[in-house]
Protein backbone atom coordinates (compact mmCIF):
# COMPACT_ATOMS: atom_id res chain seq x y z
CA UNK A 1 0.00 0.00 0.00
CA UNK A 2 1.06 3.58 -0.61
CA UNK A 3 1.81 5.32 2.65
CA UNK A 4 -0.57 8.20 3.37
CA UNK A 5 1.64 11.12 2.40
CA UNK A 6 1.41 14.62 1.03
CA UNK A 7 -0.53 13.78 -2.14
CA UNK A 8 -4.08 12.49 -2.55
CA UNK A 9 -4.97 9.50 -0.39
CA UNK A 10 -8.34 8.01 -1.28
CA UNK A 11 -10.57 5.92 0.94
CA UNK A 12 -13.86 4.41 -0.24
CA UNK A 13 -16.35 3.00 2.28
CA UNK A 14 -19.05 0.88 0.71
CA UNK A 15 -21.93 -1.29 1.83
CA UNK A 16 -25.66 -0.90 2.17
CA UNK A 17 -27.83 1.88 3.54
CA UNK A 18 -28.18 1.77 7.33
CA UNK A 19 -24.68 0.44 8.08
CA UNK A 20 -23.47 3.88 9.11
CA UNK A 21 -20.92 4.33 6.36
CA UNK A 22 -21.79 8.01 5.72
CA UNK A 23 -21.12 8.71 9.37
CA UNK A 24 -17.89 6.72 9.21
CA UNK A 25 -16.79 8.82 6.22
CA UNK A 26 -17.62 12.02 8.04
CA UNK A 27 -15.59 10.86 11.05
CA UNK A 28 -12.58 10.02 8.87
CA UNK A 29 -12.75 13.46 7.21
CA UNK A 30 -12.98 15.16 10.59
CA UNK A 31 -10.05 13.14 11.91
CA UNK A 32 -7.97 14.10 8.85
CA UNK A 33 -8.71 17.79 9.40
CA UNK A 34 -7.78 17.30 13.05
CA UNK A 35 -4.44 15.98 11.74
CA UNK A 36 -3.99 19.29 9.89
CA UNK A 37 -4.83 17.90 6.43
CA UNK A 38 -7.43 18.89 3.87
CA UNK A 39 -10.28 16.45 3.40
CA UNK A 40 -13.29 16.11 1.12
CA UNK A 41 -16.07 13.60 1.64
CA UNK A 42 -18.76 12.82 -0.92
CA UNK A 43 -21.54 10.29 -0.87
CA UNK A 44 -23.60 8.19 -3.17
CA UNK A 45 -26.72 6.28 -2.22
CA UNK A 46 -30.10 5.32 -3.58
CA UNK A 47 -33.52 6.74 -2.78
CA UNK A 48 -34.19 4.05 -0.15
CA UNK A 49 -34.00 4.95 3.57
CA UNK A 50 -32.36 1.57 4.31
CA UNK A 51 -30.84 -1.06 2.08
CA UNK A 52 -29.60 -0.35 -1.39
CA UNK A 53 -26.01 0.35 -2.24
CA UNK A 54 -24.30 3.06 -0.27
CA UNK A 55 -20.85 4.52 -0.76
CA UNK A 56 -18.81 7.38 0.57
CA UNK A 57 -15.44 8.60 -0.65
CA UNK A 58 -12.97 10.43 1.56
CA UNK A 59 -10.04 12.16 -0.12
CA UNK A 60 -7.23 13.37 2.15
CA UNK A 61 -4.38 15.62 1.03
CA UNK A 62 -1.97 18.28 2.19
CA UNK A 63 -2.76 20.25 -0.96
CA UNK A 64 -5.90 21.55 -2.67
CA UNK A 65 -8.44 18.82 -3.43
CA UNK A 66 -10.10 19.74 -6.70
CA UNK A 67 -11.73 16.51 -7.87
CA UNK A 68 -13.88 15.57 -4.86
CA UNK A 69 -14.40 11.86 -5.50
CA UNK A 70 -12.07 8.88 -5.50
CA UNK A 71 -10.67 7.66 -8.83
CA UNK A 72 -7.73 5.56 -7.77
CA UNK A 73 -8.68 4.09 -4.43
CA UNK A 74 -5.99 3.40 -1.82
CA UNK A 75 -8.28 1.77 0.72
CA UNK A 76 -11.62 0.09 -0.01
CA UNK A 77 -13.87 -1.08 2.80
CA UNK A 78 -16.77 -3.26 1.67
CA UNK A 79 -19.51 -4.23 4.09
CA UNK A 80 -21.72 -6.02 1.54
CA UNK A 81 -21.19 -8.36 -1.41
CA UNK A 82 -22.87 -6.10 -4.03
CA UNK A 83 -20.73 -3.13 -2.90
CA UNK A 84 -17.57 -5.21 -3.10
CA UNK A 85 -18.52 -6.48 -6.55
CA UNK A 86 -19.13 -2.98 -7.81
CA UNK A 87 -16.15 -1.18 -6.37
CA UNK A 88 -13.23 -3.61 -6.14
CA UNK A 89 -12.11 -2.64 -9.64
CA UNK A 90 -11.67 0.96 -8.47
CA UNK A 91 -8.92 -0.16 -6.08
CA UNK A 92 -5.30 0.45 -7.03
CA UNK A 93 -3.14 -2.60 -7.55
CA UNK A 94 -1.22 -1.66 -4.42
CA UNK A 95 -4.41 -0.70 -2.56
CA UNK A 96 -5.89 -2.44 0.46
CA UNK A 97 -9.24 -4.23 0.35
CA UNK A 98 -10.94 -4.69 3.72
CA UNK A 99 -14.19 -6.66 3.88
CA UNK A 100 -16.68 -7.80 6.48
CA UNK A 101 -15.82 -11.48 6.52
CA UNK A 102 -19.38 -12.72 7.15
CA UNK A 103 -21.06 -10.43 4.63
CA UNK A 104 -18.58 -10.62 1.76
CA UNK A 105 -17.48 -14.09 0.68
CA UNK A 106 -16.54 -13.62 -2.94
CA UNK A 107 -13.43 -11.46 -3.28
CA UNK A 108 -11.22 -11.16 -6.35
CA UNK A 109 -8.04 -10.38 -4.43
CA UNK A 110 -6.13 -12.93 -2.39
CA UNK A 111 -4.63 -10.25 -0.19
CA UNK A 112 -8.00 -8.92 1.04
CA UNK A 113 -8.22 -8.33 4.79
CA UNK A 114 -11.21 -10.23 6.17
CA UNK A 115 -12.61 -9.24 9.56
CA UNK A 116 -16.13 -10.02 10.82
CA UNK A 117 -16.95 -6.41 11.80
CA UNK A 118 -20.68 -6.90 12.21
CA UNK A 119 -20.33 -10.09 14.24
CA UNK A 120 -17.66 -8.45 16.44
CA UNK A 121 -19.94 -5.46 17.02
CA UNK A 122 -22.74 -7.74 18.22
CA UNK A 123 -20.47 -9.95 20.35
CA UNK A 124 -18.23 -7.28 21.87
CA UNK A 125 -20.37 -4.14 21.88
CA UNK A 126 -23.85 -5.60 22.13
CA UNK A 127 -25.33 -4.17 18.94
CA UNK A 128 -24.57 -4.43 15.26
CA UNK A 129 -24.88 -0.68 14.82
CA UNK A 130 -21.32 -0.35 16.13
CA UNK A 131 -19.98 -2.25 13.11
CA UNK A 132 -19.03 1.01 11.39
CA UNK A 133 -16.89 2.16 14.32
CA UNK A 134 -15.30 -1.30 14.67
CA UNK A 135 -14.43 -1.12 10.98
CA UNK A 136 -12.97 2.37 11.38
CA UNK A 137 -10.74 1.16 14.19
CA UNK A 138 -9.43 -1.64 11.97
CA UNK A 139 -9.07 0.53 8.88
CA UNK A 140 -7.01 3.17 10.64
CA UNK A 141 -4.85 0.54 12.37
CA UNK A 142 -4.15 -1.17 9.03
CA UNK A 143 -3.55 1.92 6.91
CA UNK A 144 -2.57 4.86 9.11
CA UNK A 145 -4.93 6.99 7.01
CA UNK A 146 -5.39 9.30 10.00
CA UNK A 147 -3.79 9.36 13.41
CA UNK A 148 -5.34 7.19 16.08
CA UNK A 149 -5.75 10.15 18.44
CA UNK A 150 -7.58 12.23 15.83
CA UNK A 151 -9.88 9.33 15.03
CA UNK A 152 -10.66 8.88 18.68
CA UNK A 153 -11.38 12.61 19.16
CA UNK A 154 -13.59 12.71 16.06
CA UNK A 155 -15.61 9.69 17.22
CA UNK A 156 -16.03 10.96 20.77
CA UNK A 157 -17.04 14.43 19.59
CA UNK A 158 -19.75 13.09 17.31
CA UNK A 159 -21.41 10.16 19.12
CA UNK A 160 -24.47 10.59 21.36
CA UNK A 161 -23.69 11.40 24.98
CA UNK A 162 -23.60 8.30 27.11
CA UNK A 163 -22.25 6.11 24.30
CA UNK A 164 -18.63 7.27 24.51
CA UNK A 165 -17.39 4.20 26.35
CA UNK A 166 -18.99 1.66 24.07
CA UNK A 167 -17.78 3.56 20.98
CA UNK A 168 -14.29 3.67 22.36
CA UNK A 169 -14.56 -0.07 22.95
CA UNK A 170 -15.73 -0.55 19.36
CA UNK A 171 -12.63 1.29 18.09
CA UNK A 172 -10.41 -0.88 20.28
CA UNK A 173 -12.12 -4.08 19.12
CA UNK A 174 -11.49 -3.10 15.51
CA UNK A 175 -7.88 -2.22 16.23
CA UNK A 176 -7.25 -5.51 18.00
CA UNK A 177 -8.85 -7.51 15.18
CA UNK A 178 -6.61 -5.70 12.68
CA UNK A 179 -3.52 -6.46 14.75
CA UNK A 180 -4.42 -10.13 14.81
CA UNK A 181 -4.78 -10.15 11.04
CA UNK A 182 -1.44 -8.34 10.60
CA UNK A 183 0.29 -10.86 12.84
CA UNK A 184 -1.27 -13.53 10.65
Amino acid at each position, binding site marked *: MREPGAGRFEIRLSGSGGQGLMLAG*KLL*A*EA*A*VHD*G*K*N*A*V*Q*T*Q*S*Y*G*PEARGGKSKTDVVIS*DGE*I*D*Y*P*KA*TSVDVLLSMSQPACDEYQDSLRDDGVLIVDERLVSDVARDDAVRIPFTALAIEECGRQLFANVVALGALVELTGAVSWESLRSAVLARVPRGTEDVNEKALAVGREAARKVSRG
Partner: protein
Amino acid sequence: MADTTARVLQGNEASAIGALAAGVDFFAGYPITPSSEIAELLSQCMPLINGRFIQMEDEIASIAAIIGASLAGATSMTATSGPGFSLMQENIGLACLAEVPCVIVNVMRAGPSTGLPTQAAQGDVQQTRWGTHGDHAIVALAPSTVRECFELTVECVNLAERLRTPTVLLMDEVIGHMRESVVLPSGDEYRLVRRIEPPTGLRDYCPFGECVPEVAALAAFGGEYRFHVTGLTHDAHGYPTMVPEEVDWKIRHIVGKIESRADQLASNEEFMTEDADVLLFAYGSTARVAKASVRALREAGVKAGLLRVRTIWPFSQKRLRELAPGLRLVVVPEMNLGQLVVEVERAVCGEARVVPLGKVDGHLFEPGDITEFVLEEVGA
Protein backbone atom coordinates in the same frame (compact mmCIF):
# COMPACT_ATOMS: atom_id res chain seq x y z
CA MET B 1 -0.87 22.92 5.68
CA ALA B 2 -4.53 23.48 6.32
CA ASP B 3 -5.66 26.13 8.77
CA THR B 4 -5.95 24.55 12.19
CA THR B 5 -9.30 26.25 12.77
CA ALA B 6 -10.75 24.44 9.76
CA ARG B 7 -13.80 22.28 10.29
CA VAL B 8 -15.65 19.78 8.16
CA LEU B 9 -18.92 21.14 6.80
CA GLN B 10 -21.35 20.12 4.11
CA GLY B 11 -22.31 22.52 1.31
CA ASN B 12 -25.91 22.53 2.44
CA GLU B 13 -24.89 23.25 6.03
CA ALA B 14 -22.63 26.11 4.92
CA SER B 15 -25.52 27.58 2.93
CA ALA B 16 -27.79 27.47 5.99
CA ILE B 17 -25.07 29.04 8.14
CA GLY B 18 -24.57 31.66 5.42
CA ALA B 19 -28.28 32.42 5.46
CA LEU B 20 -28.15 33.08 9.19
CA ALA B 21 -25.06 35.27 8.76
CA ALA B 22 -26.87 37.19 6.02
CA GLY B 23 -29.73 37.95 8.37
CA VAL B 24 -32.32 35.56 6.97
CA ASP B 25 -35.02 35.43 9.63
CA PHE B 26 -37.80 33.66 7.75
CA PHE B 27 -37.58 30.25 6.10
CA ALA B 28 -40.51 28.35 4.63
CA GLY B 29 -39.89 25.12 2.80
CA TYR B 30 -40.79 21.56 1.98
CA PRO B 31 -37.78 19.31 2.53
CA ILE B 32 -36.54 17.47 -0.55
CA THR B 33 -33.37 15.53 -1.34
CA PRO B 34 -30.68 16.73 -1.93
CA SER B 35 -31.49 20.02 -0.20
CA SER B 36 -33.08 18.72 3.03
CA GLU B 37 -30.14 19.51 5.31
CA ILE B 38 -30.75 23.24 4.74
CA ALA B 39 -34.30 23.01 6.09
CA GLU B 40 -33.16 20.64 8.83
CA LEU B 41 -30.47 22.98 10.14
CA LEU B 42 -32.59 26.11 9.85
CA SER B 43 -35.48 24.42 11.66
CA GLN B 44 -33.10 24.09 14.61
CA CYS B 45 -31.55 27.56 14.32
CA MET B 46 -34.47 29.85 13.42
CA PRO B 47 -36.14 29.64 16.85
CA LEU B 48 -32.82 30.53 18.51
CA ILE B 49 -32.59 33.85 16.66
CA ASN B 50 -36.29 34.65 17.06
CA GLY B 51 -36.79 33.88 13.39
CA ARG B 52 -39.52 31.82 11.80
CA PHE B 53 -39.28 28.36 10.30
CA ILE B 54 -42.38 26.91 8.67
CA GLN B 55 -42.61 23.51 7.04
CA MET B 56 -45.22 24.16 4.36
CA GLU B 57 -47.57 21.71 2.66
CA ASP B 58 -45.71 22.00 -0.65
CA GLU B 59 -43.33 24.16 -2.64
CA ILE B 60 -46.05 26.40 -4.07
CA ALA B 61 -46.99 27.40 -0.55
CA SER B 62 -43.32 27.69 0.41
CA ILE B 63 -42.49 30.35 -2.15
CA ALA B 64 -45.78 32.13 -1.51
CA ALA B 65 -44.86 32.30 2.17
CA ILE B 66 -41.39 33.74 1.59
CA ILE B 67 -42.79 36.37 -0.79
CA GLY B 68 -45.40 37.39 1.79
CA ALA B 69 -42.86 37.43 4.61
CA SER B 70 -40.49 39.58 2.58
CA LEU B 71 -43.25 42.10 1.87
CA ALA B 72 -43.81 42.26 5.61
CA GLY B 73 -40.16 43.18 6.07
CA ALA B 74 -38.52 39.81 6.73
CA THR B 75 -35.37 38.56 5.02
CA SER B 76 -36.68 35.36 3.54
CA MET B 77 -35.46 32.19 1.90
CA THR B 78 -36.56 28.74 0.81
CA ALA B 79 -34.63 25.68 -0.39
CA THR B 80 -35.65 22.95 -2.78
CA SER B 81 -34.62 20.73 -5.68
CA GLY B 82 -35.87 20.33 -9.25
CA PRO B 83 -39.40 19.00 -8.62
CA GLY B 84 -40.05 21.74 -6.07
CA PHE B 85 -38.36 24.37 -8.21
CA SER B 86 -40.78 23.49 -11.02
CA LEU B 87 -43.73 24.06 -8.69
CA MET B 88 -42.33 27.44 -7.64
CA GLN B 89 -42.03 28.91 -11.12
CA GLU B 90 -45.38 30.73 -11.21
CA ASN B 91 -44.71 32.60 -7.99
CA ILE B 92 -41.09 33.31 -8.95
CA GLY B 93 -42.67 35.33 -11.76
CA LEU B 94 -44.82 37.13 -9.22
CA ALA B 95 -41.71 38.02 -7.20
CA CYS B 96 -39.98 39.25 -10.38
CA LEU B 97 -42.89 41.47 -11.43
CA ALA B 98 -43.83 42.68 -7.95
CA GLU B 99 -40.12 43.20 -7.21
CA VAL B 100 -40.06 41.25 -3.96
CA PRO B 101 -36.62 40.32 -2.57
CA CYS B 102 -36.31 36.62 -1.71
CA VAL B 103 -33.83 33.78 -2.07
CA ILE B 104 -34.47 30.33 -3.52
CA VAL B 105 -31.81 27.67 -3.05
CA ASN B 106 -32.09 24.97 -5.72
CA VAL B 107 -29.83 21.98 -5.14
CA MET B 108 -30.01 20.36 -8.56
CA ARG B 109 -30.64 16.64 -8.88
CA ALA B 110 -31.11 14.57 -12.00
CA GLY B 111 -34.47 15.11 -13.72
CA PRO B 112 -36.85 15.58 -15.39
CA SER B 113 -39.74 14.71 -13.06
CA THR B 114 -38.78 12.74 -9.94
CA GLY B 115 -35.63 11.64 -11.77
CA LEU B 116 -32.79 10.47 -9.54
CA PRO B 117 -33.40 12.07 -6.14
CA THR B 118 -29.94 11.38 -4.74
CA GLN B 119 -27.86 11.93 -7.85
CA ALA B 120 -26.17 14.85 -9.46
CA ALA B 121 -27.11 17.00 -12.44
CA GLN B 122 -26.92 20.57 -13.69
CA GLY B 123 -30.13 20.35 -15.67
CA ASP B 124 -31.94 23.38 -14.22
CA VAL B 125 -29.66 26.09 -15.62
CA GLN B 126 -32.02 27.28 -18.35
CA GLN B 127 -35.08 26.59 -16.20
CA THR B 128 -33.62 29.03 -13.68
CA ARG B 129 -33.36 31.62 -16.44
CA TRP B 130 -36.66 30.97 -18.21
CA GLY B 131 -38.77 28.76 -15.95
CA THR B 132 -41.41 31.38 -15.34
CA HIS B 133 -43.25 32.91 -18.26
CA GLY B 134 -42.87 36.35 -19.72
CA ASP B 135 -39.93 38.68 -20.10
CA HIS B 136 -37.97 38.93 -16.89
CA ALA B 137 -34.44 38.55 -15.59
CA ILE B 138 -33.01 36.50 -12.74
CA VAL B 139 -29.91 36.35 -10.61
CA ALA B 140 -28.35 32.90 -10.11
CA LEU B 141 -25.05 32.08 -8.40
CA ALA B 142 -23.32 28.70 -8.49
CA PRO B 143 -20.84 27.65 -5.77
CA SER B 144 -18.01 25.16 -6.32
CA THR B 145 -16.72 24.92 -2.77
CA VAL B 146 -18.26 24.64 0.67
CA ARG B 147 -16.91 28.08 1.58
CA GLU B 148 -18.64 29.50 -1.48
CA CYS B 149 -21.92 27.93 -0.38
CA PHE B 150 -21.68 30.29 2.58
CA GLU B 151 -20.40 33.29 0.63
CA LEU B 152 -22.80 33.05 -2.28
CA THR B 153 -25.81 32.54 0.00
CA VAL B 154 -24.86 35.85 1.62
CA GLU B 155 -24.45 37.36 -1.85
CA CYS B 156 -27.85 36.03 -2.97
CA VAL B 157 -29.48 37.73 0.01
CA ASN B 158 -27.59 40.97 -0.68
CA LEU B 159 -28.50 41.04 -4.37
CA ALA B 160 -32.14 40.17 -3.67
CA GLU B 161 -32.37 43.05 -1.23
CA ARG B 162 -30.39 45.51 -3.34
CA LEU B 163 -32.19 44.83 -6.63
CA ARG B 164 -35.61 43.88 -5.18
CA THR B 165 -35.73 40.60 -7.03
CA PRO B 166 -35.76 36.86 -6.42
CA THR B 167 -32.26 35.36 -6.53
CA VAL B 168 -31.30 31.70 -6.89
CA LEU B 169 -28.41 29.85 -5.30
CA LEU B 170 -27.92 27.15 -7.92
CA MET B 171 -26.06 24.27 -6.31
CA ASP B 172 -25.72 20.74 -7.59
CA GLU B 173 -26.02 17.55 -5.54
CA VAL B 174 -22.27 17.03 -5.37
CA ILE B 175 -21.67 20.47 -3.86
CA GLY B 176 -24.74 20.34 -1.60
CA HIS B 177 -23.82 16.96 -0.10
CA MET B 178 -20.05 17.33 -0.20
CA ARG B 179 -18.19 17.83 3.05
CA GLU B 180 -14.82 19.52 3.06
CA SER B 181 -12.45 21.20 5.42
CA VAL B 182 -13.35 24.86 5.46
CA VAL B 183 -12.68 28.06 7.32
CA LEU B 184 -15.80 30.19 7.06
CA PRO B 185 -15.43 33.95 6.61
CA SER B 186 -15.51 36.00 9.78
CA GLY B 187 -17.96 38.86 10.16
CA ASP B 188 -15.57 41.49 8.78
CA GLU B 189 -14.96 39.50 5.59
CA TYR B 190 -18.43 40.05 4.14
CA ARG B 191 -20.93 42.89 4.05
CA LEU B 192 -24.68 42.89 4.35
CA VAL B 193 -26.98 44.86 2.07
CA ARG B 194 -30.54 45.72 2.97
CA ARG B 195 -33.43 47.08 0.89
CA ILE B 196 -33.91 50.83 0.93
CA GLU B 197 -37.00 51.80 2.90
CA PRO B 198 -38.94 54.99 2.16
CA PRO B 199 -38.60 57.95 4.52
CA THR B 200 -41.54 58.56 6.84
CA GLY B 201 -44.16 61.20 6.16
CA LEU B 202 -44.35 60.90 2.38
CA ARG B 203 -47.63 62.22 0.96
CA ASP B 204 -47.34 59.98 -2.07
CA TYR B 205 -45.31 56.76 -1.62
CA CYS B 206 -44.70 54.98 -4.91
CA PRO B 207 -43.49 51.43 -4.23
CA PHE B 208 -42.86 50.83 -7.95
CA GLY B 209 -41.85 54.33 -8.96
CA GLU B 210 -38.68 56.34 -8.90
CA CYS B 211 -35.49 54.39 -8.46
CA VAL B 212 -33.27 55.44 -5.56
CA PRO B 213 -30.82 54.77 -7.16
CA GLU B 214 -31.34 51.26 -8.54
CA VAL B 215 -34.87 50.32 -7.50
CA ALA B 216 -37.76 51.97 -5.68
CA ALA B 217 -37.75 52.02 -1.90
CA LEU B 218 -39.78 49.20 -0.37
CA ALA B 219 -41.95 49.75 2.69
CA ALA B 220 -42.91 46.86 4.94
CA PHE B 221 -46.53 45.78 5.05
CA GLY B 222 -48.11 46.63 8.36
CA GLY B 223 -46.11 49.84 8.61
CA GLU B 224 -46.81 53.45 7.72
CA TYR B 225 -47.75 52.96 4.07
CA ARG B 226 -50.56 51.00 2.47
CA PHE B 227 -49.94 49.86 -1.06
CA HIS B 228 -51.17 47.42 -3.65
CA VAL B 229 -49.19 44.36 -4.81
CA THR B 230 -50.42 42.42 -7.81
CA GLY B 231 -49.27 40.01 -10.48
CA LEU B 232 -51.04 42.19 -13.03
CA THR B 233 -48.68 44.56 -14.80
CA HIS B 234 -48.85 47.68 -12.68
CA ASP B 235 -48.02 51.36 -12.47
CA ALA B 236 -45.80 53.19 -9.99
CA HIS B 237 -48.43 52.85 -7.25
CA GLY B 238 -48.93 49.14 -7.87
CA TYR B 239 -52.33 49.40 -9.59
CA PRO B 240 -52.98 47.46 -12.79
CA THR B 241 -52.23 49.37 -15.95
CA MET B 242 -52.54 48.79 -19.68
CA VAL B 243 -50.99 52.12 -20.65
CA PRO B 244 -48.34 51.09 -23.21
CA GLU B 245 -45.67 53.46 -21.89
CA GLU B 246 -46.15 52.27 -18.31
CA VAL B 247 -46.20 48.59 -19.31
CA ASP B 248 -43.10 49.04 -21.45
CA TRP B 249 -41.26 50.85 -18.64
CA LYS B 250 -42.13 48.15 -16.12
CA ILE B 251 -40.85 45.23 -18.18
CA ARG B 252 -37.72 47.06 -19.30
CA HIS B 253 -37.11 48.01 -15.67
CA ILE B 254 -37.32 44.48 -14.19
CA VAL B 255 -35.08 43.13 -16.97
CA GLY B 256 -32.74 46.10 -17.20
CA LYS B 257 -32.01 46.45 -13.49
CA ILE B 258 -30.36 43.00 -13.67
CA GLU B 259 -29.12 42.59 -17.25
CA SER B 260 -27.48 46.03 -17.35
CA ARG B 261 -25.35 44.95 -14.38
CA ALA B 262 -24.19 41.63 -15.87
CA ASP B 263 -20.52 42.65 -16.03
CA GLN B 264 -20.61 44.27 -12.60
CA LEU B 265 -22.14 41.15 -11.02
CA ALA B 266 -19.80 38.75 -12.83
CA SER B 267 -17.57 36.72 -10.55
CA ASN B 268 -15.03 34.39 -12.10
CA GLU B 269 -12.11 32.21 -11.15
CA GLU B 270 -9.40 31.71 -13.74
CA PHE B 271 -6.81 28.97 -13.69
CA MET B 272 -3.89 28.96 -16.14
CA THR B 273 -5.71 31.12 -18.69
CA GLU B 274 -2.76 33.49 -19.30
CA ASP B 275 -1.32 31.57 -22.24
CA ALA B 276 -4.17 29.12 -22.83
CA ASP B 277 -5.42 28.36 -26.33
CA VAL B 278 -7.86 25.73 -25.09
CA LEU B 279 -10.40 26.96 -22.58
CA LEU B 280 -12.56 24.87 -20.29
CA PHE B 281 -15.65 26.82 -19.24
CA ALA B 282 -17.40 25.35 -16.22
CA TYR B 283 -19.35 25.99 -13.03
CA GLY B 284 -20.40 24.15 -9.86
CA SER B 285 -18.92 20.72 -9.17
CA THR B 286 -17.98 20.28 -12.83
CA ALA B 287 -15.50 23.14 -12.49
CA ARG B 288 -13.58 21.17 -9.84
CA VAL B 289 -13.19 18.31 -12.30
CA ALA B 290 -12.21 20.73 -15.07
CA LYS B 291 -9.45 22.13 -12.88
CA ALA B 292 -7.98 18.66 -12.43
CA SER B 293 -8.26 18.18 -16.20
CA VAL B 294 -6.39 21.42 -16.88
CA ARG B 295 -3.47 20.10 -14.82
CA ALA B 296 -3.53 16.80 -16.73
CA LEU B 297 -3.79 18.56 -20.11
CA ARG B 298 -0.84 20.79 -19.27
CA GLU B 299 1.19 17.67 -18.49
CA ALA B 300 0.15 16.32 -21.87
CA GLY B 301 1.44 19.49 -23.53
CA VAL B 302 -1.91 21.16 -24.21
CA LYS B 303 -2.09 24.82 -23.23
CA ALA B 304 -5.37 24.51 -21.36
CA GLY B 305 -6.99 26.92 -18.91
CA LEU B 306 -10.18 27.14 -16.90
CA LEU B 307 -12.74 29.94 -16.70
CA ARG B 308 -15.11 29.16 -13.85
CA VAL B 309 -18.18 31.35 -13.37
CA ARG B 310 -19.83 31.87 -10.03
CA THR B 311 -22.45 34.18 -11.53
CA ILE B 312 -24.50 32.18 -14.01
CA TRP B 313 -27.32 34.71 -14.46
CA PRO B 314 -27.11 37.44 -15.55
CA PHE B 315 -24.59 35.96 -17.98
CA SER B 316 -21.61 38.22 -18.56
CA GLN B 317 -19.96 37.93 -21.97
CA LYS B 318 -17.09 40.26 -21.08
CA ARG B 319 -14.33 37.87 -20.04
CA LEU B 320 -15.11 35.34 -22.77
CA ARG B 321 -14.95 38.08 -25.41
CA GLU B 322 -11.58 39.20 -24.06
CA LEU B 323 -10.18 35.67 -24.12
CA ALA B 324 -11.78 34.51 -27.39
CA PRO B 325 -9.24 35.94 -29.90
CA GLY B 326 -6.45 33.85 -28.33
CA LEU B 327 -8.41 30.61 -28.25
CA ARG B 328 -8.81 27.84 -30.76
CA LEU B 329 -11.15 25.67 -28.72
CA VAL B 330 -13.64 26.16 -25.90
CA VAL B 331 -15.02 23.04 -24.21
CA VAL B 332 -18.05 23.39 -21.95
CA PRO B 333 -18.54 20.35 -19.70
CA GLU B 334 -21.94 20.34 -18.03
CA MET B 335 -24.04 17.69 -16.30
CA ASN B 336 -26.77 18.30 -18.89
CA LEU B 337 -26.94 18.04 -22.67
CA GLY B 338 -25.83 21.61 -23.34
CA GLN B 339 -27.44 24.50 -21.48
CA LEU B 340 -24.97 27.24 -20.58
CA VAL B 341 -22.90 26.38 -23.67
CA VAL B 342 -25.49 28.31 -25.68
CA GLU B 343 -24.51 31.51 -23.87
CA VAL B 344 -20.83 30.71 -24.33
CA GLU B 345 -21.37 30.33 -28.09
CA ARG B 346 -23.12 33.70 -28.21
CA ALA B 347 -20.23 35.35 -26.39
CA VAL B 348 -17.42 33.70 -28.33
CA CYS B 349 -19.29 34.58 -31.52
CA GLY B 350 -17.39 32.29 -33.86
CA GLU B 351 -13.91 33.40 -32.82
CA ALA B 352 -13.13 29.91 -31.49
CA ARG B 353 -14.74 26.52 -31.84
CA VAL B 354 -17.16 25.92 -28.94
CA VAL B 355 -17.94 22.30 -28.10
CA PRO B 356 -20.37 21.02 -25.46
CA LEU B 357 -19.51 17.98 -23.36
CA GLY B 358 -22.67 16.63 -21.76
CA LYS B 359 -23.18 14.02 -19.05
CA VAL B 360 -26.62 12.90 -17.91
CA ASP B 361 -26.07 9.56 -16.16
CA GLY B 362 -26.41 10.93 -12.63
CA HIS B 363 -22.68 10.88 -11.99
CA LEU B 364 -20.09 13.61 -11.86
CA PHE B 365 -17.46 13.64 -14.61
CA GLU B 366 -14.13 12.06 -13.85
CA PRO B 367 -11.10 14.19 -14.77
CA GLY B 368 -10.15 11.65 -17.45
CA ASP B 369 -13.53 12.11 -19.20
CA ILE B 370 -12.78 15.77 -19.87
CA THR B 371 -9.06 15.31 -20.50
CA GLU B 372 -9.58 12.60 -23.10
CA PHE B 373 -12.38 14.54 -24.79
CA VAL B 374 -10.16 17.60 -25.15
CA LEU B 375 -7.21 15.56 -26.43
CA GLU B 376 -9.45 14.06 -29.08
CA GLU B 377 -10.84 17.47 -30.07
CA VAL B 378 -7.40 19.04 -30.46
CA GLY B 379 -6.20 15.98 -32.37
CA ALA B 380 -3.42 15.22 -29.93
